[in-house]
């Protein structure tokens, strides 16, 4: 590197299983390259730092036309959207996605988060979201630091890469 350490500042705003991977994959990779990394978890994204909810992230088939077709050979044949509303369909889609990830040997969310913690990634918990949703510091993993937008912007102002996810 030689010059100054690079910095990555991410906003993680989504709390679904599929959207939990990108910020954690980018953060752990950047940290592996020696970058400083901070993630601001806001709105539903805060669930990624929530001790209990972290283990129960889900992906919904409703309103999600990107869900893969049941028969790969017929890509235009999708599961009709209304079927997604049946009881158990969200759990099924979640189980399916976890299966793909496990088969591809992608670590589960909790492990990716642990990789980030081990690599000293700063985990900012949006103070406003905590207030709005009634979430306290005790509900979050101990590495979560309660912070407002100002703290994140101050951190991001010195970043080389910033992304909103």
């Amino acid at each position, binding site marked *: *590197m*030689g010059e100054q350490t*690079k910095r990555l500042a991410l906003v993680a705003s989504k709390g679904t299983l599929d959207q939990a991977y990108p910020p954690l*994959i980018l953060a*752990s*990779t950047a940290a*592996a*390259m*020696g*970058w400083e990394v901070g993630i601001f978890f806001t709105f539903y994204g805060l669930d990624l730092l929530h001790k209990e909810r972290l283990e129960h992230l889900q992906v919904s088939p409703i309103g999600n036309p990107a869900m893969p077709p049941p028969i790969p050979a017929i890509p235009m044949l999708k599961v009709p959207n209304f079927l997604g509303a049946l009881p158990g369909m969200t759990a099924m889609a979640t189980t399916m996605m976890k299966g793909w990830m496990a088969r*591809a*040997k*992608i*670590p589960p969310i909790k492990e*990716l988060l642990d*990789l980030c913690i081990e690599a000293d990634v700063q985990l900012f918990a949006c103070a406003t979201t905590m207030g709005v949703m009634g979430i306290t510091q005790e509900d979050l993993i101990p590495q979560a630091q309660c912070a407002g937008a100002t703290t994140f912007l101050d951190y991001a102002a010195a970043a080389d890469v910033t992304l909103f996810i």
Partner: protein
Amino acid sequence: MAETVKATQSLDCRGLLCPLPIIKLSKAIKGIQVGEVLEMLATDPGSVPDVKAFQAQTGHEILASEQEGGVYRFLVKRTK
């Protein structure tokens, strides 16, 4: 040229996808001495540009990057 270089350690990342190969590479590089060489095996085609980018970002030098039968083999030297 590559064959004259001796790797101190070998890292097997076959069957793994991003981000694991680079995270394991980063850890393994820290486990060898400056000037020593690490051999890494991978099957993810994305690891070819990724290892190059790792070199660009960290300065650790790729001495060899080759492919044989669907397996990519890299020799990476720890430079600092």
